[in-house]
């Protein structure tokens, strides 16, 4: 996991190029070191341009996606769509022969309920695990745990979906007596398990980035370990922890395959944790393939894509503002 704080990266003098650094070690003319030195002279601009292209291409890709999504949804966005119905109706009937209705209220409720509950589960567990890893565990235990947690992040989401369907579902029925096992609770548990590795690694990094002098000072003042964690480390690592949580939330909102299988895919506003729901992402995944290109249903699905886009964008923006706010305060 890369360090996240920009501050922790040592500053190199930017005007010194690799070639100049290498020239210090360049050997005699004709020697093997000289050869590699020449090679570097020649390849540096190439590498530089390749890297620059990589950077620019990501901007290009984002713009292209923007363009594509908005182009496909354009007709709907510019008047064809009944916005009031879109946001206030809980009736999603894209293929009804009687009356088609495109209301996403139930889908929004599904996305938010699952995301909220999964955050409630994953944040305490993730932060707890991070604190244990960075402050309490040591040696082999720590290494093992870290590897296992990284492994958790490597499980494909469709596999999580299977686990939800085959294992968690029946267990939920057995414990709660719910009529159906694929529901808000199931989806939230799976999403929480999926976002915990992200939360753990990012927040563990930021906790470790807190200088040891803070811990020593806290110990010297007679603070217990819990007090050190709660009163010293958490405030010091605030921005990193917040970033960890928001990355986790982002993962939860954007996840598709696992929630498609775990939530039951039912269009309704949930009234309890054991109600099945349907999320925005799952709706797009399940229905886009069936639609006729350019048809109403197709375009509305792209509008849903834009709504999702707006949600994640505002979360990122919020995160950015929050982190800045936290930084601003701590600089005072």
């Amino acid at each position, binding site marked *: 996991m890369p360090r996240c704080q920009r501050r922790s990266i040592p500053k190199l003098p930017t005007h010194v190029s690799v070639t100049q650094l290498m020239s210090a070690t360049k050997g005699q003319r004709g020697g093997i070191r000289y050869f590699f030195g020449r090679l570097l002279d020649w390849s540096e601009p190439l590498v530089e341009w390749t890297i620059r292209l990589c950077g620019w291409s990501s901007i290009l890709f984002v713009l292209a996606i923007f363009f594509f999504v908005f182009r496909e949804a354009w007709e709907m966005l510019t008047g064809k769509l009944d916005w009031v119905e879109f946001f206030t109706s809980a009736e999603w009937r*894209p293929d009804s022969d*009687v009356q088609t209705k495109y209301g996403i209220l139930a889908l929004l409720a599904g996305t938010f309920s699952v995301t909220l509950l999964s955050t409630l589960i994953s944040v305490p567990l993730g932060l707890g695990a991070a604190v244990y890893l960075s402050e309490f565990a040591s040696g082999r235990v720590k290494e093992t745990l870290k590897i296992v947690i990284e492994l958790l992040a490597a499980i494909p989401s469709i596999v999580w979906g299977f686990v939800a369907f085959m294992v968690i579902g029946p267990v939920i029925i057995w414990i709660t007596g719910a009529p*159906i096992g694929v529901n808000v609770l199931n989806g939230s548990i799976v999403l929480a398990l999926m976002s915990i590795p992200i939360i753990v690694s990012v927040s563990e990094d930021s906790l470790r980035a807190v200088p040891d002098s803070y811990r020593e000072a806290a110990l010297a003042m007679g603070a217990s370990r819990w007090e050190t964690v709660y009163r010293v480390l958490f405030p010091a690592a605030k921005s990193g922890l917040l970033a960890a949580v928001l990355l986790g939330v982002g993962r939860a909102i954007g996840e598709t395959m696992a929630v498609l299988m775990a939530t039951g895919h039912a*269009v309704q506003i949930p009234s309890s944790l054991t109600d*099945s729901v349907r999320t925005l992402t799952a709706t797009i995944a399940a*229905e886009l393939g*069936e639609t*006729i290109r350019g048809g109403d249903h197709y375009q509305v699905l792209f509008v849903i894509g834009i709504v999702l886009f707006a949600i994640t964008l505002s979360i990122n923006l919020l995160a950015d503002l929050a982190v800045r706010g936290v930084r601003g305060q701590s600089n005072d």
Partner: protein
Amino acid sequence: MNARFFKLPVILVALLSCGFVVGCGKGDQGINVEGSDTMVNVAQAWAEEYRKERPEVDVRVSGGGSGQGIANLINGVVSMANASRKMKPEEMELAEKSTGKKAVEFVVGQDALAVYVHKDNPLDSISLEELAEIYGEGGTITKWSQLDVENVGCDNGEIVRVSRQSNSGTRHYFSHAVLGDDRQLKLGSNDQSGSKDVVDLISRTPCAIGYSGMGYATEGVKMLKIATKKGDEPVEPSVENTISGAYPIARPLLIYTMGEPTGQVKHYIDWILSEAGQKIVADKGYVAIQ
């Protein structure tokens, strides 16, 4: 912060997959078939058997739902669409507009749509009226007790409706057969994306009821006998009852092509309609055409 490290692989994958798509799209001599999830088993069996007869023709089959197959037939992506419902008039129109040809329909078999419940559910039969009250908009039946059964495995007695996603021909057929043309399905059902998923979910959910092709029955579920009206003699979903017409919710299995098929597509469809093809229909648990 992490994004930086993910970008390069993402770009590489994107470029590679572009390459694959282009690579597959060219110089293609096979038949692409897509559509009905109900028919995907039999369609794959056809393709396998046909390969033995004409190994030079590569038949590629995928499911996804009748709606998806028809949409991709209209989009020009596939040469044949399997469908467990008829094409809608507006789809016919669109197809003609976009390809300039008329869609042609072939009846290649029949399927009884079975209504499933969990194997421990004591219910044995149900009427179409009751199904309409369970599945229909404004329906009044929400508890198992309203059907006079004591479903012990189901703690709070609620009926969990399992249904199919919106592009499903099975869902479309079920809705019209049970609710008629003017009533809609009630929202809030668990919409599964495959015929098999419906049966899987029901076998894990004692409170559930659902519909799927009769070929998908497993040990964890039970097929109900269906009565057209309450009080009528309920009929078991079986090949005989489907052929005789006694079973009320059976539908034709269809294949659509754009324009009268020619060349290898025509040969393939003729083969499906021949004795060899129809034998596979019967083997897979559907009803062959006579």
